[in-house]
């Protein structure tokens, strides 16, 4: 020891330099690494670190602790509970791939291989870096976008993202995405996966599927036009909304209309330039209030601020409903800053100016707060997910997050720093606490009852008013007495000489439905009074002290655009908030009122609330002048909505058409407030391309002797007929004949057939004939119909599908189909029973059940088709007593598209297949056989077919079937 010491003391300069070199090297190495890391971060965020060593030391500390953790960590846990994605990219391709880091656009795709531990197969993929924010590309853990280019998509997803999600609450987005999906919001699936990239374990990533075909299918909607809006480059908050240049059409219903952005332009135009009246009418028809309210409720509850004026706008246009639906994307939340919406955008602003939308949004927020987003449930979910991920994250050497420094400046706040378990649980607790505060804030806002009245001075009316004249309409009033037995208003002339102005004021988030008025009069033995609205209609009439309102229309406050204290600059600071709004009435009475009490029902909580005499500050804040319906909203502080009293409740108009000839010369639309009755024996004569669209209830009760006929003038091709929307529910089409039409063009809604039924329920089609359609459309198409009841339909000479049913439930009984250019009956994601039906001569399938359909078919005959019964994509088919004759293949199961998870199941009880080249052909199983039941080849045992032969085909037995077919030859 002494020897070493002595030598050390006498060490020569050169030797000392050599001995000191590793230390110097380490210091230089870590110093330069820290400087480089800091510089890279500065470049990525475009900001300089404050001019001291503080941030250099933070970077040095982070690098040192990460390396220490690297040395101590054991790598991937032995039993990983999440899927591992192994990606292999060649060296040259990796250089190209990383060349895209930090670019705003044009990040290149490079070929790669992907294998997933839960699956045996590997995928040929294309991969590119994703995201331009620094956390997506600064660290070794880079966010990626993956495109499966060969073979079946991964769990139905052709394109998906592996995101380096750096929010400190790791499980936050997953909780929000799951809650959103459970509450009817369209949101791509969201999971945690582990990624191994060229042999290096990069730790936990967030898997997020791209909104595409699978998302729409899983949400039981039709694949259609989908737009994504993000402000590219610089511009003010409205830039993105002025035209379509900042929007990308991500998917398109038809490849041919990839460039067509007409619908989007229409929406943007209405948002920015339409008057209140025009926008509100457009929104009520073409914006799905339910879907937007559900999405906004999620944003509100979880305090999300990612869907502002400039980014993350994703909109889907449903082709058969003709309405816009939002797609949820980027769901970072769990923040509270004392406002209901942490960020607004032009759509949510305009929608909240429509009272019924705002009521719906509030109702959804309330339901979430009490249900799926209650503090208890969210906390439990957060704890469960965190525990599940704990082993993964504690072995994730690159686990990092931002917001791990106090908010001294944005530079510090957004800095990516290594994360550990201690910090993760601290953040979890802290975010849960913020969430509790937000939850309690929102509950308070929604529960608040801001219900007031203000009585003016009573004056004496010189006129005498006849009570009989003043009797209110049945729709508006019904006298109701609380204490005394009901007493009818006096029929003789009564003097209501006192007139007292009454203002009912609402100011909060919730609407209030006036429920009851109690008035004490001065020295009045038999009070007689009524409440008259501003438009001079009588709302109430009573001969007692107490009267109940009959209308359950809530009174809502107007809203205006206020400015948030916090938040980003620009219009992202706008907030929509209610302002005290007065509804003016007059109390006309035979005695002078002395004491007044008003009760209402709180629209959200359904509690009875008591109106207070309006204090001066409320009364002085009441909006004095509301905008006119023809005004255009300006997106600026102080802008007001219409007075909700301006909402016109249209009455239902009944139109009777026929009998005789009715000429339709262009496309005629009967609105949703028009019910149409067509008399038996009516013939609609259509000019070329003319069509009829009904949005209200339709009743067509034709008879066999007096059918209702739709045909073209002089046999010319016409358009089609459509029943569109929820107001058509309960419509009936009986003994109706449609001949020679095609489909309806140039409408916001896509109509693919001569007869179209969309987005409605309980529709009866009975004894109808659809023949000789033209063009490349179907004959009869139903989409989004609940309770479709089709009886005795006859479809002949269809150019494409004879009967095409999508996303619907119901039954088809006694259908007769002859000659179809595609399928006889084609189902997509529907649940149907088909019975007693005959299908003859189809180019493709007799009956096709695709895309997750459930089909029960019994007592049927299918002849002369390519495939008698066809099924694919996790559809379930149950066959009972059917004959498949002279088809190329009896039963065929198609190749799965990979968009649906489950298997096809086909079972049969008494299925007879004759004259087929193949009995059963399956591409999804090794053996060509049914899952349950067997096939019979001849009519040795006819008992199961008794009903089919006797009642449907009306033959004595199987031996007559060929003769029966001969008489019904097909083309």
């Amino acid at each position, binding site marked *: 020891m002494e020897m070493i010491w*002595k030598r050390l003391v006498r060490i020569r300069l050169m030797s000392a330099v050599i001995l000191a070199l590793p230390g110097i090297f380490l210091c230089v190495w870590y110093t330069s690494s820290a400087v480089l890391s800091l510089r890279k971060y500065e470049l990525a965020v475009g900001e300089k670190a404050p001019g001291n060593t*503080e941030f250099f030391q*933070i970077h040095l500390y982070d690098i040192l602790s990460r390396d220490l953790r690297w040395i101590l960590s054991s790598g991937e846990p032995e039993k990983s509970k999440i899927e591992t994605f192994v990606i292999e990219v060649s060296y040259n391709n990796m250089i190209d791939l990383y060349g895209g880091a930090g670019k705003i656009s044009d990040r290149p795709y490079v070929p790669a291989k992907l294998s997933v531990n839960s699956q045996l197969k590997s995928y040929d993929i294309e991969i590119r870096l994703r995201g331009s924010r620094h956390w997506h590309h600064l660290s070794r853990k880079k966010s990626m976008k993956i495109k499966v280019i060969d073979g079946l998509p991964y769990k139905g997803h052709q394109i998906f993202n592996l995101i380096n999600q750096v929010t400190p609450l790791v499980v936050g987005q997953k909780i929000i995405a799951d809650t959103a999906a459970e509450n009817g919001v369209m949101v791509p699936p969201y999971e945690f996966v582990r990624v191994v990239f060229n042999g290096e374990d990069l730790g936990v990533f967030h898997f997020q599927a791209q909104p595409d075909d699978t998302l729409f299918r899983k949400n039981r909607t039709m694949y259609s036009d989908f737009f994504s809006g993000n402000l590219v480059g610089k511009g003010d908050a409205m830039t993105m909304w002025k035209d379509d240049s900042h929007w990308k059409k991500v998917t398109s219903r038809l490849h041919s209309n990839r460039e067509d952005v007409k619908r989007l332009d229409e929406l943007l135009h209405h948002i920015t330039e339409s008057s209140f009246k025009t926008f509100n009418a457009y929104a009520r028809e073409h914006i799905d209030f339910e879907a937007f309210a559900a999405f906004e409720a999620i944003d509100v509850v979880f305090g999300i601020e990612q869907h502002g004026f400039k980014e993350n706008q994703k909109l889907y246009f449903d082709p058969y409903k003709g309405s816009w639906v939002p797609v949820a994307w980027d769901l970072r939340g769990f923040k509270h800053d004392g406002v209901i919406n942490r960020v607004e955008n032009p759509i949510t602003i305009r929608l909240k100016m429509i009272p019924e939308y705002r009521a719906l949004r509030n109702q959804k927020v309330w339901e979430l707060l009490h249900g799926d987003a209650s503090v208890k449930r969210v906390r439990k979910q957060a704890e469960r997910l965190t525990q599940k991920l704990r082993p993964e994250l504690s072995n994730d050497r690159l686990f990092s997050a931002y917001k791990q420094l*106090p908010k001294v*400046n944005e530079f510090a706040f957004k800095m990516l720093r290594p994360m550990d378990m201690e910090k993760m649980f601290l953040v979890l607790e802290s975010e849960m606490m913020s969430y509790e505060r937000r939850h309690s804030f929102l509950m308070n806002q929604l529960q608040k009852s801001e219900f007031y009245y203000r009585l003016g001075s009573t004056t004496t009316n010189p006129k005498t008013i006849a009570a009989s004249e003043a009797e209110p309409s049945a729709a508006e009033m019904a006298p109701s007495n609380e204490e005394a037995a009901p007493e009818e208003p006096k029929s003789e002339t009564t003097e209501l000489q006192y007139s007292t102005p009454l203002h009912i004021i609402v100011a909060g988030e919730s609407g209030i439905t006036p429920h009851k008025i109690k008035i004490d009069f001065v020295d009045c033995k038999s009070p007689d009074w009524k409440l008259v609205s501003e438009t001079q209609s009588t709302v109430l009439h009573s001969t007692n002290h107490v009267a109940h309102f009959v209308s359950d229309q809530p009174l809502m406050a107007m809203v205006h655009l206020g400015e948030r204290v916090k938040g980003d600059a620009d219009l992202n600071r706008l907030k929509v908030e209610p302002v005290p709004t007065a509804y003016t009435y007059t109390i006309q009475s035979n005695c002078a009122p002395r004491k007044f009490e008003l009760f209402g029902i709180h629209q959200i909580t359904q509690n009875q609330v008591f109106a207070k005499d309006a204090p001066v500050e409320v009364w002085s804040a009441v909006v004095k002048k509301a905008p006119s319906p023809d005004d255009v909203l300006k997106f600026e502080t102080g802008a007001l909505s219409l007075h909700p009293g301006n909402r016109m409740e249209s009455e239902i108009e009944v139109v009777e058409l026929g009998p005789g000839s009715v000429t339709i010369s262009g496309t005629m639309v009967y609105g949703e407030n028009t019910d149409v009755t067509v008399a038996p024996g009516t013939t609609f004569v259509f000019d070329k391309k003319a069509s009829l669209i009904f949005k209200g209830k339709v009743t067509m009760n034709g008879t066999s002797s007096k059918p209702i006929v739709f045909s073209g003038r002089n046999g010319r091709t016409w358009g089609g007929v459509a029943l569109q929307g929820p107001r058509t529910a309960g419509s009936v089409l009986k003994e109706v004949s449609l001949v020679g039409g095609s489909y309806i063009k140039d409408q916001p809604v896509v109509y693919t057939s001569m007869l179209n039924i969309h987005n409605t329920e309980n529709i009866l089609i009975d004894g109808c004939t659809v023949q000789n359609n033209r063009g490349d459309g179907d004959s009869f198409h139903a989409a989004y119909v609940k309770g479709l009841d089709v009886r005795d339909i006859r479809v002949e000479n269809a150019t494409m599908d004879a009967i095409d049913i999508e996303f619907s439930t119901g039954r088809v009984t006694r259908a007769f189909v002859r000659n179809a250019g595609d399928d006889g009956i084609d189902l997509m994601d529907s649940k149907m029973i088909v019975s007693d039906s005959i299908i003859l001569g189809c180019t493709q399938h007799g009956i096709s059940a695709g895309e997750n359909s459930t089909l029960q078919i019994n007592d049927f005959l299918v002849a002369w088709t390519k495939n008698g019964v066809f099924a694919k994509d996790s559809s379930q088919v149950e066959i009972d007593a059917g004959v498949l004759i002279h088809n190329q293949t009896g039963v065929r199961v198609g190749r799965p598209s990979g968009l649906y998870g489950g298997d096809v199941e086909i079972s049969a009880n008494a299925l007879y297949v004759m004259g087929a080249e193949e009995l059963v052909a399956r591409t999804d199983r090794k053996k060509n056989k049914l899952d349950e039941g067997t096939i019979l080849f001849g009519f040795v045992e006819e008992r199961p077919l008794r009903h089919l032969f006797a009642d449907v085909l009306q033959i004595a037995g199987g031996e007559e079937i060929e003769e029966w077919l001969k008489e019904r030859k097909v083309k």
Partner: protein
Amino acid sequence: MEGNRQKPSAGFWLLCGVSALVVAFFIWGFSTPRLEDVWKLEVKLKIGQIQRISDSEKEMFYGVFEDYPKYMKDLSGRRGIDLLSANSDGLSLVDELLILRTSDASNCGKFMLDVSGAQSEYPIVFTIKGRTWKKELKVTRNGRSTVWLPKGVQVPEFIEVTRKNSKGKSGSVDVKVRFCD
């Protein structure tokens, strides 16, 4: 013996110097950044994991406030005075309260304590300690008590509100803090 003692070589001094520098570099590098400490303390206070901070921690906060006044403004809110310890809209979730008061609170020379608890808890004596001052507040029944803050003292300051003679269990008395209004 004397003759055996040799003067350390220049190489030795170089080695000592470099070693000291390397050790110092790594000690400095591995020392938790003060901003991280401040962040952790802020979060721990917010969630109630800690209720008070030591004098040295307070000094660390004051140092950060001096370097980053925006952070101080953020913490002290629009009134320049706010509760930092765990609370729900001012209702304290912990027994000891920690308030931050800054120069922006010059118009707000007081805060109010709404106290409620069982009668057996009373009288309650609160010790209120600022950066350079200390006072006591005796509360004898449920209701609102006003704490007047001394003027002309050094700010920013942390104000600790603790119960001197806590008879009951933790959380047996509810305290809601209101500022200015």
